[in-house]
């Protein structure tokens, strides 16, 4: 039987193509299961998982929790505002406290890049990164690639453009790593102020004209504008952003082909994407959400199996 190569899921960076394909094959099975009348399996019975969220999250946390419950794991949820030296208890202390209650696996979201790797060096449990600042969001990238594979048959050779705030996006970085490992071509598109100067070092194409990017791609992944992550202004107004980089029906109709529209959610309707596009037949936004549960079940199932304990 194939085994997952990692003890933790810290980032797509650490995974091999085989790992990703194994996640997909496993997710196929779970997707079939969660569409049956009895959606629950006993795979993770007696495994305790803590969902520790230092940043607000609704959909990722619910998706993880649902995946855990469908696998029969015991779940505890912990939310806190970001911890730091100045704000009292340190991250390691917080997590060690929770682990003293015999927790096997930690799903963590944290505002600081590298926080999950930092934690993995200091504690014993298995860690799943549910987003570490502007670094990685591996389960999002896996479910996105899984959704492309489901819609288009495979990821290999497909052209995917990621549109929006690349600088502050962990979804972009993990997606780039994941899609490239699976053989897709990746382009980033957005205002120059929101694209890291050295992004080409990752082997991606760069485009600042949305129409050209759409013309090129098979799939457009429209990122959320994350004003909460921007400490200074990178563009004058959401209105202008939307004029330049927002996707609407008019722009789609100008294309001489059909493309797949994705969005990691939550959508700012009317900013990066208009309602008529988000709700159109091109959009696979809700499939992404459904696939999120299956992919996360697959990840936790595989990690539990790869665990040395």
């Amino acid at each position: 039987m194939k085994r997952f190569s990692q003890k933790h899921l810290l980032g797509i960076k650490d995974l091999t193509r085989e790992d990703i394909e194994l996640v997909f094959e496993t997710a196929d099975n779970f997707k079939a299961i969660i569409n049956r009348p009895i959606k629950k399996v006993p795979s993770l019975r007696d495994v305790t998982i803590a969902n520790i969220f230092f940043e607000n999250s609704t959909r990722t946390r619910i998706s993880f929790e649902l995946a855990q419950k469908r696998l029969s794991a015991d779940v505890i949820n912990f939310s806190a505002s970001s911890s730091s030296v100045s704000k009292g208890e340190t991250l390691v202390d917080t997590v060690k406290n929770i682990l003293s209650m015999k927790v096997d696996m930690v799903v963590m979201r944290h505002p600081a890049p590298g926080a999950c790797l930092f934690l993995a060096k200091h504690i014993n449990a298995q860690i799943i990164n549910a987003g570490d600042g502007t670094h990685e969001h591996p389960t999002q990238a896996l479910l996105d690639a899984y959704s492309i594979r489901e819609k288009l048959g495979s990821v290999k050779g497909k052209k995917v453009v990621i549109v929006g705030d690349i600088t502050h996006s962990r979804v972009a970085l993990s997606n780039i790593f994941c899609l490239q490992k699976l053989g897709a071509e990746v382009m980033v598109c957005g205002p120059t102020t929101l694209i890291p100067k050295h992004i080409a070092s990752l082997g991606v194409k760069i485009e600042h004209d949305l129409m050209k990017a759409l013309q090129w791609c098979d799939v457009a992944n429209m990122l959320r504008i994350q004003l909460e992550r921007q400490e200074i202004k990178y563009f004058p107004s959401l209105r202008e952003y939307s004029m330049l980089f927002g996707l609407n029906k008019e722009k789609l109709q100008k294309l001489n082909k059909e493309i797949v529209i994705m969005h990691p959610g939550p959508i700012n309707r009317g900013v990066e994407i208009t309602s008529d596009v988000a709700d159109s037949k091109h959009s696979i936004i809700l499939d992404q959400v459904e696939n999120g549960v299956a992919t996360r079940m697959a990840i936790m199932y595989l990690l539990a199996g790869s665990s040395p304990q």
Partner: protein
Amino acid sequence: MKLVILNAIVCDPQSAMHGKKCDLLISSGIIDDIQPSAKKVFEKSSTKSWDVKGALLSPGWFDMRASLREPGMEHKENLESGALAAAAGGFTRVACLPDTDPTLQTKADIEFIYRKSEDLPVHLLPYGAITKNREGTELNELYDMHLAGAIAFTDANKCLMHAGIMMRAMQYAANFGGILLSHAQDQHLATGGRMHEGAMSVNLGLKGIPNIAEEVIVARDIELARYVNTPLHFSHISSKGSVELIRKARKQGLQITADVSVASLVFTDENLHDFNSNYKVLPPLRGKADQKALWDGVADGTIDCIVSDHQPEDTEHKAVEFEYAAYGMIQLQTAYSLLNMFKPKQLDNGMLIKALSINPRKILKQKAVSITKGASAEITIFNPTATWEYHAASNLSKSVNNPVMSQTLTGKVLGIINKDQLIKNI
């Protein structure tokens, strides 16, 4: 104290004995005599002798940039622990930064450092802050501090963003021969940055501090120095562009000098691949091309000095998420070993001694020290091929934030002679 040093190879480009194997007779803090093979003669005058077996002997090293954390953060370092680490690292003099709490910014603050360090084996020479609380808005009483012995003026790791205040500080200090140090990092261009902007910062999802953040201030301050016609020293420059700007300014005859930190010479941004906060420093560790340009700058004299940029931080500020970790690494004790291990082959020990000993004294207008008969005995003895273990027990700093902790290092300081004392490393 009387002491005979036997079989030392003099490493002092200023001395006629440079490169020669000699014996030295030291008495009451003076090099009484220096000659090849004078063991028998010298040992008649002193019972205490030390055969250094072909180790190198140079004028005592002078560190132009270290934070010793006293007053205010004595749990990270104090003058005594800093001085002991410096002595073990081969330094006989250390210029200490005013980034203390309170800031060193009055005559009394400067006198405090001198008084408190009187009996320490290393001379500690305080810098005074240019502006009040290093906030960049109001000039301190620079002249009063100068009279009290402030060796020069700097706001440490805070860039003086207001060009007008920077210019007036340069003009004002020049009245009495005061020297200004510029820490170049434009805070607006560096906003949100935690490391060098490059392929590695993209890979780690961290916002970068671009080279241009340093270069615009280097360019600005060179133009200010040209306009007001005063000398100016740039502290710990890190980018290739800065080296080029300074090289050009010097060719044009401006009195511009510069130093570089050990960290910038021996590490790059690639060391940050796993978010190890011990590599989080200011200026940030830059790319390979910058690193090469810095070494080239040292080799051709564009960069005058190499500094430890010793920044002690406690575990509570380092063993946290990278984003929240404090900047800085300790380097006083390991500076020489790392330079020795990482320096390009064409850079000989004589050039290293210029950067570690001779040039800092010139720039800060301190008395020159040389290995010649009659000179004061301020000496560092070191062996480039000997190895030693750097670990928690041999570390003399109160802090442990050094990425080469628990490693074997090549290039060992055997001891210093300073203040009429011999301090041997075991």
